[in-house]
């Protein structure tokens, strides 16, 4: 047991509580924001290191033994996800210093940000299904509030769709939990994984129903086809820093849970679930990328691309060979960093030009050539050009598809890659390359939408994340090994079960 296991949850909780306690002082909240997310990043690095060296970490919260109490568990996948949470959180906190207007700070932006991070980290670390539900709710409450902060008409409209579908998903999730508890008598993930294999023949049908209920619930959270439309309706409405953290983390929690459940827990009836996942993955990819092609608003294009990228990850899970799972995990790592970064870039473009509409933008390459580079790195990585991170992620998944003989899926993945490139080039052409339209150069974002005049804090996180993208591409081997070890743990849940419940006599 290591203390580092609980820190990624406790630090944001404490930071959130402290910034609520200092609600009068904006300065204190900003400092707590940076220090708190910095500490979260540090603790997540420590956690990954400990998990890598000493194997799966387990902490019985309040010393109540599993399977009765709530356990926090970090296997490699969980630790990797927490690290990504730390990275995104820290980058966003820096970015927020300049991009979040004072009015929003006044209405509790920072406490909500910490609460959101606590919810995300908790969902990645918990080893209990009901506790997972609680963390989902924590996350949703925080994200509801963040999405309507500012109270513009478009935000309300987006938030209503977001809230309705997510509540529906939570209701499904909760009913599935109830049924699962009825069948197995436990909600500890390790215990459930063990007990499901002993369910009598007569109740196998019920297990399939539960499994599909969970699948639908998490597919909504992950914004998979056909229940994705809440995402493009809402993600372009809040502040960019909020969009970035939503785009990077929230849907990936859904994907993470799919990976956790359909490798470890519901792995007996793969015929049914993984066929559904395969089609879901392909259609998600296609609809996402085609939706993006029709859009001419910076953040809406990016939102649709989240969906199509989610498809790749689900595809990795659906093919369900060791290599495919490795590809899926690698894809998640690459995607969170790249996607958050693209949103941050869109925010900087807005800061410089005061609009997200591609038609009204242009000429940024002439005035800000370096920004062009910082956009191109994540954009080309998203499209999968070597030697950037996206290339290896796509390569592993497509190779797994070829080896498994899923030719249709491979074809779809390749076409979607090409269309992604088209979309990114479209943004590049419209925003950076084409001549600036009349009057565009003089426009700037109105002062009430941000703070101060310095652009340093805009560039810093963007450059940091872009360098990380390059690093994942150049040093793909160690990252690949990490993903391989994580996939290995997922496919052989015995280690996880023994770590949580103790070795079987």
């Amino acid at each position, binding site marked *: 047991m290591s203390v580092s296991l609980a820190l990624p949850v406790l630090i944001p909780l*404490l930071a959130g*509580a*402290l910034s609520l*306690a*200092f*609600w009068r002082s904006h300065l204190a909240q900003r400092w707590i924001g940076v220090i708190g997310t910095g500490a979260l990043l540090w603790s997540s690095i420590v956690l990954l290191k400990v998990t890598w060296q000493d194997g799966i970490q387990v902490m*019985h919260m*309040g*010393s109540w033994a599993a399977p009765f109490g709530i356990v926090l568990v970090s296997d490699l996948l969980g630790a990797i996800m927490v690290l990504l949470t730390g990275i995104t959180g820290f980058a966003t906190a820096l970015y927020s210093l300049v991009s979040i207007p004072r009015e929003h700070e006044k209405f509790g932006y920072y406490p909500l940000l910490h609460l959101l991070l606590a919810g995300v980290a908790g969902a990645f670390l918990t080893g209990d299904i009901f506790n997972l539900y609680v963390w989902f709710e924590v996350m949703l409450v925080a994200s509801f509030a963040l999405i309507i902060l500012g109270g513009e008409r478009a935000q309300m409209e987006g938030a209503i769709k977001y809230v309705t579908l997510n509540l529906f998903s939570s209701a499904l999730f909760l009913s599935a939990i109830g049924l699962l508890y009825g069948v197995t008598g436990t909600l500890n993930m390790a215990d459930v994984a063990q007990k499901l294999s002993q369910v009598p023949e007569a109740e196998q049908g019920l297990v399939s129903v539960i499994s599909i209920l969970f699948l639908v619930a998490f597919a909504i959270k992950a914004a998979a086809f056909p229940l994705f439309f809440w995402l493009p309706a809402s993600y372009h409405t809040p502040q960019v820093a909020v969009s970035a953290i939503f785009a990077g983390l929230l849907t990936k929690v859904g994907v993470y849970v799919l990976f956790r459940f359909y490798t470890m827990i519901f792995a007996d009836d793969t015929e049914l679930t993984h066929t559904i996942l395969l089609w879901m993955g392909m259609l998600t990819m296609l609809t996402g990328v085609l939706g993006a092609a029709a859009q001419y608003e910076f953040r809406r294009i990016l939102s649709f691309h989240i969906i199509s990228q989610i498809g790749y990850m689900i595809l990795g899970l659906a093919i369900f060979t060791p290599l495919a799972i490795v590809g899926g995990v690698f894809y998640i790592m690459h995607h969170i960093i790249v996607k958050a970064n693209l949103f941050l870039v869109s925010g900087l473009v807005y800061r410089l030009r005061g609009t997200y509409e591609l038609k009204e933008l242009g000429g940024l390459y002439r005035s800000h050539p370096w920004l062009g580079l910082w956009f191109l790195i994540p954009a080309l990585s998203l499209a999968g050009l070597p030697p950037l991170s996206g290339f290896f992620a796509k390569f592993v998944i497509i190779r797994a598809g070829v080896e498994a003989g899923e030719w249709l899926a491979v074809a779809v993945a390749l076409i979607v890659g090409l269309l992604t490139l088209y979309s990114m080039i479209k943004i590049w052409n419209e925003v950076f390359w084409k001549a600036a339209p009349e009057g565009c150069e003089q426009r700037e974002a109105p002062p009430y939408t941000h703070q101060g005049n310095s652009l340093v804090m805009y560039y810093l996180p963007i450059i940091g994340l872009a360098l990380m993208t390059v690093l994942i591409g150049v040093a793909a081997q160690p990252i690949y090994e990490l993903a391989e070890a994580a996939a290995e743990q997922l496919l052989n849940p015995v280690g996880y079960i023994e770590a949580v419940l103790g070795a079987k006599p």
Partner: protein
Amino acid sequence: MKIESSIILRAAGHFLLPLLIIFSIFLLLRGHNEPGGGFIAGLVAAAAIALYLFSMDIQAARKALYVDPRDLIGGGLVLAVLSGIPAALQGKAFFTSLWWPVELPLLGEVKFSTPLIFDIGVYLVVIGSVLTIVLNLAEAEEKS
């Protein structure tokens, strides 16, 4: 707009406020093994202040509370999170309950514990959030 409250309510408000606060503290301390605890105690205390608000006015209610309710939310949350940490310092899992029984004259054995600190945190958060809402609504009402 100011509605004159009835004289009975005004007279009773003075007596009920301290009684209800004492009752809420009783509920708070009774919790853990018997019905009670921070949440319900917080609701009772918040109801006491709200009753006082109706019988007197907003200024009087704010004065009776001494602090801004928003401070209670933050302070209570910090307290609740901190209550999990002493166990970790002793090398146990976070939020493991620690008990420190103390013999006090007159009272007999009194058990101080980390769950008590957590409950006090919850108590403050509940009072703070309920009263933030109630006082803001009352002020909005008064302005209109």
